[in-house]
């Protein structure tokens, strides 16, 4: 297993976080992204997270989201983006639900 480092997102996540992209480009460490100080995620923020996770995947960098507030986790749940949910450790969405 690779050594990992933690990166904290501060404030609104509305654009690319260059520091994260650099870590992924370097590819030598796994990444923990700490959302404890993230106050808002915009549509652009969501799009960036998805593309960042794609890059990380091809560079074999494991990215894990930690310290998610309920508000942000709900955004991810409603957005239904598989790679983001998987970075949160969320179970895969099930298509067949049990009857009432």
């Amino acid at each position, binding site marked *: 297993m690779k050594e990992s480092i933690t990166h904290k997102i501060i404030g609104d996540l509305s654009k690319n976080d260059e520091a994260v992209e650099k870590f992924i480009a370097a590819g030598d460490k796994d990444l923990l992204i700490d959302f404890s100080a993230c106050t*808002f*995620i*915009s*549509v*652009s923020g*969501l*799009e960036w997270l998805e593309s960042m996770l794609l890059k990380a995947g091809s560079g074999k960098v494991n990215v894990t989201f930690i310290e998610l507030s309920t*508000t*942000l986790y*709900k*955004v*991810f*749940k*409603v*957005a*239904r983006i598989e790679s983001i949910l998987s970075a949160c450790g969320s179970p895969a969405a099930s298509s067949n639900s049990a009857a009432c």
Partner: protein
Amino acid sequence: MATTVTEQDLGLMDQVNSLARKARLAAAVFTQYSQEQVDAIVKAMTIAAIDAAQDLALVACEETKMGLVEDKILKNLVASEFQYHQIRYKKTVGIIKEFPEDNMVEVAEPVGVILGLSPVTNPTSTIIFKSIACAKTRNSIIFSPHLMAADCSNRAAQVVYEAALAAGAPRDFITWIDKSPRLRRITELLMVHPQVDLVFATGGTHMVKAAYSSGKPALGVGAGNTPVYVHKTANITAAATDIIISKTFDYGTECPSEQTLIMDSEISELLLNEFKRLGCHICSEEEVDKVAQTVIDERTGSMNYKFVGQPAKIIADHAGFAVPIDCKILLCPLIGELRKHKLVVEKLMPVLGCVTVNSEQDGINRALDINYAGGTGHTAGIFAADDDNIIEKFSQAINAGRIIVNSPTSIGGLGGVYNNLHTTLVFGCGTGGGNITTDNVGIGNLLNYKRVPKRSNFIMTFQTTKNIYINPGSLDHLRGVKTGVTFIVTSKSAAKRGHLAMVMERLPSQTRVDTFSEVGAEPDFNVIKRAITMMRQSKPDTIIALGGGSVMDAAKIIRLFYEYPDLKLNELAVNFLDFRHRLVVFPQKTTVQLVAIPTTSGTGSEVTPFAVLSMDQRKVSLIDECLLPDVAIIDANLTKTLPKELTVDSAFDALTHAIESLVSAYASDYTDGLALEAMRLIFEALSPVLDNPGNVLLRHKLHNAACLAGMAIGNASVGVNHALAHSLGMIFGIPHGKANSVFLLSTIAHNAKMPRKFTSISSYPLWIADEKYARAAQFLNLPVEKKTNGKLALAANIENAASVSLDAKDIIRDQREARKQLLIQALSRAIFDLLEKCGQAKSISELGISEDDFKAKLPDLVALAFNDLSLRTNPSFCLQADIAQLFIDSYPPRTRP
């Protein structure tokens, strides 16, 4: 909808997926927004829409070639300004409503991604309306405009979207499908797209049907066909003016607008003249035919879309007759059978059918003809002064989501202009139109409502007989009782045992007394009726119930039916799951005073709100506060002559009451105290009284015990033991006290075990029956087996030590459990020993019931017990299998626990 993606669709799927994904992300981001943020966005969108109202109306008219610019401006303003006025202070984020009396709140959850279909008739106003409603509710919306109005619709969407974005809305929360020949196919693909949560359709029947069959939740509207009844009491000029305003509004494109007038004959000529005077054309029979041929599509039988939203003059020109250029409406008298007339359908243009009727009944029936000719559930109108409830009669009959009174139905239906209906451009038609709602659809329909009910513990109360005289000799209370006429309800044995004489000689000398002594062991309703007939003669102010449980129960019912002869016994006796929700309502007050004087020490009926009666070979139980006697006299002198067998039977009934109320799911601190003390008195006095039956002190203890236990069950009720006993008593004719006795040891063992199934009673959150039995054993100071006492002391020491290891905690828990089990065993032993000492049967077999008979009747026994009300308050839920097992366990002779 059977939508399969074809090869041709593959090129479209990128576009479809892109729209859906954009909307999905926007909906996700929107969940973070506060009410303040949302309201700022809504305000900015409204301002932009008001600013653009005129431009958008112009482009709508240009593109669709329908309607009137001035009216389209008004519609755009209704969609923006009027809607804003109604929703600006409405809460749509977080807790949106509180229900303090129900201990509940409602929390909003956005619907998510909405596919919004918009029509050709109201293109820009519908877009404005739905956009603002979606922003207010934090939903994203993908617009699918009508192909013939796509450019103006999308322009409207862009105007409000840009304003929203500038005010901070999520990117892409409003998107739209561009005008192209693929527009309809893209819409169909979106309707079944997994990312779309709701289809919000307004438009032609085809699109609405497609929306409803998409398999998605859908909000949509059906077609209208508005009948308007002009009653003879209407103000003729005002009615004609309103109808003209309405029917000419945007040249009739509004779906709630008037389609056929139904006119009372008394005013029809006046009304038509008024229309003529105000600039409408009354068509001749021949002209009506021409209009019908022009505006009705022969193939479909419905309106010809070429003439939707066109002025009257153009329609008349096409039909081939002349009207003035500014003719407002073509009024077409519909002659012949109305239901079959071509013009009976919806006509979104200034063509208005009319028919004359000779009565109110005829008027409403003809309105129903129109109402059910394609517009069920939509809109109707009535003009009337309402001096004979005609509006109410009309509303009862007509199936329409909005029934507009004395005002234009089109602008009236929009809401907010002529009335306080919710402003809308989407008219729910209910099931009549295949819709889920009859609402003026708006923000209220675009939210999921999360109800958050807090647990309600219902208010517990303690009630019993108000005045209870409790010592030997208290029968003397009767000397001072305020009564002119007393009616004594009693049994034959009361006279034999001398009780009747004891009562008579104490009643004030001037009292007139009538006595009814026909109450036997299990009185039925005929006995009650005979007593009441007698009471009607004597007109008493006081009833004295002198006897055992049957007598007191009968007296309670006699008083009730004497005072309320219209009550129905079978209704009063309807079974219930929860006392607070039961079907029947008992009278609130009784005026004849009821004095209960028990002569046995068992049922406690003198202080309970229960009364049991036989009816058609079964027992019915009445339960209500109004059955409580006003006075109870607990005088042990009356029990001195009670035979041994009855003494034991009734004492075990009382003991069962105490034990069952103690562990009841409705038990409270109040009933616990009574139950424990009742048990103590019985354990103390029952055995000695058998050797010394005339001892008043011992009799006094048993008499009080029965009364205390009565108060306990009167509030906490009984449990499974009584259910079993009632059943056994009924099927094998076993007296109640004996029947209770044979089950006691089994039901305690059953209830002391962790339930197989917990009982769902709000006020009984923790199962504690085992603790309660243990507490009873402690209270009664029963001897406990010594074998683990040393370990218990050790456990107590460990518990008191400053630091306790986990292992030690386990030991303590195990020891406590063991101690509890020993206490429960001690209680069971004490009951076994008492039964033994009294010579009371401890099992069913000892009652002389053969095993074969018992087995043969077992299914009936179980069925009867399972249906018994007593089960409701048992501390564990009893399954039918549990009940069967309890019967089986109670059959063989018992050994000491």
